[in-house]
C-alpha cells in the first residue's frame, strides 16, 4: 500500500502541530522529510528522530512497512 507525501505530512502534523514540515518525493515509497520543531530543543539527533518515527506510527516498521525509505532531517528553529 503506497503512501503519499501528503499522508506523511498529515501524520507528522498530528504530533508536531507547530513545526515547519517539508516532505519531498512522489514514488510512494521513498521520501525525504525535514521537520523543524521547538520540541526538539535539548534533544540529541537520535531522540529527535525517534520522535519523528513515533509520529509515523509504524509506517516505517518491518518488512511490511509502507514507507521503505525516509531520509530524515530534524532541526530546532533558529
Amino acid at each position, binding site marked *: 500500500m503506497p503512501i503519499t507525501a501528503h499522508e506523511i505530512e498529515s501524520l507528522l502534523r498530528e504530533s508536531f502541530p507547530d513545526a515547519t514540515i517539508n516532505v519531498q518525493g512522489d514514488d510512494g515509497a521513498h521520501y525525504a522529510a525535514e521537520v523543524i520543531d521547538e520540541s526538539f530543543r535539548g534533544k540529541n539527533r537520535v531522540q529527535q528522530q525517534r520522535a519523528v518515527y513515533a509520529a509515523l506510527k509504524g509506517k*516505517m516498521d518491518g*518488512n511490511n512497512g509502507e514507507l521503505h525509505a525516509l531520509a530524515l532531517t530534524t532541526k530546532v528553529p533558529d
Partner: protein
Amino acid sequence: MAIEDQIKETVTSSDVVLFMKGTKSMPQCGFSSRVAGVLNFMGVEFSDVNVLADDAIRQGIKDYSDWPTVPQLYVKGEFVGGCDIITEMTLSGELDTLFTENGVAFDQDAADKIREANG
C-alpha cells in the same frame, strides 16, 4: 541465547559495529551503502552484520535500539544513529570527534576529503 543477549554481545564485540542490509563489500540498500562507504573511505575497522541474513536479528536490532530502520551504527556498544545522522555527523566533524574520544582509528585526511567534496 535470547536474541536481545545475542545482539548485546554482537554490538560490544567490536568497537564499531554496523547493522546493515547486505555486507560492507556488497551493500544491498542505498542507505546501508552510504554508511558502509563512509566507514570504508575513512579507513575505520568495523564489523558488519547483514540483517537480511537473519529475520530474528532484523527485527531484534530494531527492538534493541528502539529505532525502526537499518542501517544502525554502534560505537563501543552505544547506538549512534542511522544513515541521516551518520551523514550529518560526518559532514559536521562530530563523527571524527566520536571516534577520537572512543579510541577508534580513522584516516583524518580521508574524513577531511569527504567534507571538502560535500562542503
